[in-house]
């Protein structure tokens, strides 16, 4: 086969460009930007949350801080945020508990109140939970009086002066993030500390977590840690089958988590 000089040059150029262009393309597009091309987040201002279960040690400081910050009577057995413990034994049995919502933390290997030997445990994890501030909140959909609503920036709130206390929202939340506040006698739930995040502060639970297991931020802000994690890491949500589009994203979940 006879190759002219010109053809050889052309082929060489194509080969060089072919190897160089993808590399340079990757350089221009940061991983975040590349990910956002695949899954573009809306430009709309929207709060979201990331929970890294691999970092949670189950100290329950978040649950304590939340109760004090949001004036939910400390000893009432309701929680705006709580931590669940999942322990799988070597015989395959799974034990789950969340004593007092873990606002006093986990200090013993005693799932469901029964002490077990460390050697029996195959694996375990702590899963902090809070309101998922769903994009399509079924609790809001079912409120008959318009006493609960989603703000423009994606946080679901309750109007304490208008709620009639029918409990339909509580029943319709797949996560049981709602309860009746014992003093106002109206439905109550996590607000992502709306009074703090709107002032540029962290939520009380994020602030109180010494291990960085919780992050709250704007999903559409390229500078926010939440955006960075969502666009580069593998995250999952709880109970997506209900179609609520929850906006609390988890790292390190397990199939035993409910």
């Amino acid at each position: 086969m006879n190759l002219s000089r010109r053809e050889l040059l052309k082929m060489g150029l194509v080969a060089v460009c072919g190897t160089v262009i993808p590399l340079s393309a990757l350089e221009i597009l940061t991983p975040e930007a590349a990910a956002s091309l695949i899954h573009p987040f809306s430009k709309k201002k929207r709060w979201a949350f990331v929970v890294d279960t691999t970092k949670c040690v189950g100290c329950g400081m978040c649950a304590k801080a939340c109760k004090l910050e949001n004036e939910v009577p400390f000893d009432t057995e309701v929680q705006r945020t709580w931590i669940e413990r999942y322990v799988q034994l070597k015989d395959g049995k799974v034990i789950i508990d969340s004593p007092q919502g873990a606002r006093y933390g986990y200090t013993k290997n005693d799932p469901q109140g029964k002490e077990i030997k460390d050697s029996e445990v195959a694996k375990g994890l702590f899963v902090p939970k809070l309101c998922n501030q769903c994009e399509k909140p079924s609790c809001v959909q079912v409120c008959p009086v318009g006493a609960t609503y989603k703000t423009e920036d994606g946080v679901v709130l309750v109007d304490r002066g208008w709620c009639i206390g029918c409990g339909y929202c509580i029943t319709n939340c797949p996560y049981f993030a709602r309860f009746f506040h014992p003093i106002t006698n109206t439905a109550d739930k996590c607000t992502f500390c709306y009074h703090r995040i709107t002032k540029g502060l962290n939520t009380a639970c994020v602030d109180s977590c010494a291990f960085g297991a919780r992050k709250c931020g704007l999903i559409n802000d390229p500078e926010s840690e939440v955006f960075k994690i969502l666009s580069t890491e593998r995250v999952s949500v709880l109970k997506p089958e209900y179609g609520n589009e929850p906006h609390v994203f988890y790292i390190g979940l397990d199939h035993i988590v409910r």
Partner: protein
Amino acid sequence: MSHAWRPVFVVLAAIVFFLVARVILVPSDFSAKNGDYKYQWHRLSSEQYWKDFPVKHKGMEFCGMCHVPILEKLKGGGHQNVQCENCHAMFNPEKKSHPIDLKEISGYLLNIGTDRSRELCKRCHAELPYRPSTYTDPKKGTVKFKMIDPDKHNPSMECAMCHDVHSAGFKTAAK
């Protein structure tokens, strides 16, 4: 007109009465924001209620305004990410022991005291088979997490007897 219309008039009167009552009783700021009747049908003033909710946890920047040496000690040690309120905010108001009334002076609303119980330290430092054994520090990277078996590690002694909880080290003999 036939008598048969009379019940209709009663119903109409009831409807008119109700509509008038509704105009009076419905708050003026009740509306479907952005035309979103499904998820944003509410009293707009309620949003302000939540924005105005008092902030309580103010963190080490606030406490450090007075407790300068402690803050310095804290920043240099292993507890630098632990907020003062984690240990000092009392959920039991009787345990409040801060010498100055913070509420009066600076509008700080939490009850500040000192909890020296082992239970408090155990929340992080009791060894559990599924408790992460390391943690990631933004500056130092992966750090081994100090955990003890509370049943074997000097039981019945207060942790603060030996440990300086602010610097996260041992108490020096000089003291």
